[in-house]
């Protein structure tokens, strides 16, 4: 229908304008932007990951406004402490935050969740894997992040796909995981899901290591004694370095190192420490969709803002943090108000097709969990994480078995 200015239209327009001008201040004074407080552990023992997420939050404002969202961001350091998380959440809500995004760590996230629940302020979780978060009965949070169980079940399925794609014959595997909140959740999921996953190899043993240990040589020796074809790992950032380093020193070359979903194998410090030895592990985790326009926009904003960091390495933390903010901003756009209850209702009804991470549109179930987040198989090639499966979003094909340590330059 062509737009012509008819008299009817003019009259309608004039009436509407007059009505608007004469409207009571309440309607006219709609908040201009959504004030979102981003609470992250930028100091304390979680600083490495928290700062990575923060880099995503720093560029989110611009990318969101480019896409027509109006947000005002406030960044708070929660010092990896649940006590600080709680008081800072209260403070930031006092200072006018309409919504909170955070907090990477499950204990800190839960402290914030309680504040949000009591003050009826929506919490959009960027990263926190403890399954119970969406089982405890919170009404004012949403989690656009997979639970440990989801990660493992998607991860195991992808392992099968990887083995099929590379035609690798694997007979045994050993599962190594950190004995912390995250690793323990993965272990529980593995114990439950592996027997039913229909994978062609046996799980010879599951080994838990002490996350505070500074030395993984004994763990590697233990693995080596079992001589598995595959090593499945759930590690934290710095531990992956020690793991691979000791494998090289002990001359143990598994056919593949695969993570069913954890950090470590693709952190920048891992690449820095190991150089060419850092290539070829595969990690099955949600990842930024290289073919999505929002993802490309995010990457374009990341480069100039953080020249010393690589988007390809950080896109997991950056992507999820951005998406949490996107969820909040989108909810605000649809709700048209910063009123907590209404905003939360709008956020619960989220359905965002155009987002950053691989997968279907962002939607939440009635517990606030996004159950549809798939994982992708990502492999380090040339010190750069590269999506290898599923084929629709892959930029290359997976390579297994891993080339031997000594044969790398």
């Amino acid at each position, binding site marked *: 229908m062509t737009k012509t200015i008819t008299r009817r239209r003019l009259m309608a327009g004039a009436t509407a304008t007059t009505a608007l001008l004469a409207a009571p201040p309440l309607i006219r004074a709609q908040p201009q932007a959504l004030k979102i407080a981003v609470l992250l552990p930028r100091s304390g023992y979680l600083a490495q990951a928290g700062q990575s997420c923060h880099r995503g939050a720093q560029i989110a404002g611009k990318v969101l406004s480019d896409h027509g969202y109006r947000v005002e961001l406030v960044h708070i350091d929660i010092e990896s402490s649940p006590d*600080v998380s709680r008081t800072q959440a209260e403070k930031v809500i006092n200072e006018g935050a309409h919504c909170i995004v955070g907090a990477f760590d499950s204990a800190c996230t839960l402290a914030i969740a309680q504040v949000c629940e009591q003050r009826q302020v929506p919490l959009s979780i960027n990263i926190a894997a403890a399954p119970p978060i969406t089982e405890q009965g919170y009404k004012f949070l949403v989690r656009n992040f997979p639970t440990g169980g989801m990660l493992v079940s998607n991860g195991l399925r992808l392992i099968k796909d990887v083995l099929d794609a590379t035609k690798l014959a694997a007979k045994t595997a050993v599962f190594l995981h950190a004995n912390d909140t995250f690793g323990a959740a993965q272990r529980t999921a593995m114990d439950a899901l592996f027997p039913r996953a229909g994978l062609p190899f046996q799980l010879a043993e599951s080994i838990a290591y002490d996350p505070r240990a500074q030395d993984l040589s004994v763990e590697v020796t233990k693995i080596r004694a079992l001589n598995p074809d595959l090593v499945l790992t759930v590690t934290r950032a710095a531990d992956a370095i020690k793991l691979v380093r000791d494998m090289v020193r002990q001359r143990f070359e598994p056919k593949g190192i695969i993570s069913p979903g954890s950090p470590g194998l693709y952190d920048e410090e891992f690449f820095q420490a190991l150089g060419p030895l850092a290539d070829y592990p595969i990690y099955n985790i949600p990842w930024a969709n290289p073919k999505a326009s929002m993802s490309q926009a995010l990457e374009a904003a990341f480069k100039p803002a953080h020249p010393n960091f690589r988007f390809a390495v950080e896109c997991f933390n950056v992507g999820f943090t951005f998406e949490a903010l996107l969820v909040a901003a989108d909810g605000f756009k649809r709700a048209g108000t910063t009123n907590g209850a209404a905003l939360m209702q709008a956020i619960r009804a989220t359905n965002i097709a155009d987002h950053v991470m691989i997968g279907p549109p962002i939607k939440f179930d009635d517990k606030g969990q996004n159950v549809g987040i798939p994982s992708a198989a990502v492999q380090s090639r040339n010190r750069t994480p590269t999506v290898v499966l599923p084929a629709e979003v892959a930029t290359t094909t997976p390579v297994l078995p891993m080339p031997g340590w000594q044969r790398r330059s």
Partner: protein
Amino acid sequence: MIGSLNPRARVLLLVLLAALIAAPLVADRYLISVLILIFYFAYVGQAWNLMMGFAGQLSLGHALYVGLGGYVSALLWLKFGVGPWLGVFAAVAVAAAFGAVIGWLGFRFGIEGVYFALLTIAFAEFTRIAFDHIDYAGAAGGLFLRVDESGEWWNLRGGTLLFYYLALALAAGALVLTAFLARTRLGYQWLAVREDEEAARALGINAFRAKMMAVLISSAMTAVGGVFTAFYNNNLFPSRVFDINRSIEIILAPVVGGLGTVFGPVVGAFILTPLGEALTALTGLFGINTPGVKGAFYGLALMVIIVLKPSGIWPWLARTLRLTEHRP
């Protein structure tokens, strides 16, 4: 150093108490949450103070009792539906049992000073790693309480106000208990043992019994703090609740406030917790958003305080403001 408050100071104390009781009417939620932290640290600091300040035993593993108290009460609630008002007795019993073992090992075998401190650390760390592996208690994955059971204040399922008054009651109660104990025969025995154990023994005081009482009361009281923590935070992780940093947090307030004094832990808590918040606010104000700055200043503040006022701030405060009648 147990000066008794003169009438003027007593009035001030009552005014403070009244203000704190009325605070929720005027204070915003941020302030309330900070006050809850202050009361909590004043409470567990007071509990620790009994063992160290009065009986002279340096415990650097007090988080053990917090954790045990929390886990026992949380498990009773989750697995058996036993509410915390009953569960607290079990929590106290378990913590006191551990305290008894540690105390007995320490005193029977003459482990003192730094060695005793290391003994307490060893028990706390051992228990932490143990809980990381106890599947019944959630292991490293953690233990979680539901948050949508509201209104049952007798099961500590409620909002911030409930916990505010509970924490205030605990802190005030600990203060009263300490003041009371200080005047009892046991309290004087503690003083004697702390000053000179051999002389105390020569006077016929059963030093072993006095010290054990201190350990038992201290660990029992701390366990109650653990119950509070579990139901206030609604989650427990071994690596957090038994962590040595939590043990260190517990002792900061009493030492800074004044070891062995009745008001020390309270004063210390009222100084340190707001100090942390103030530093955060200040660094934000100056636009210093770099992580680590606040922490560095906090550490510096601790060093400055202990260098300038090694006996704690309360004794100096009491003298300067003339709040006590001094015993020569």
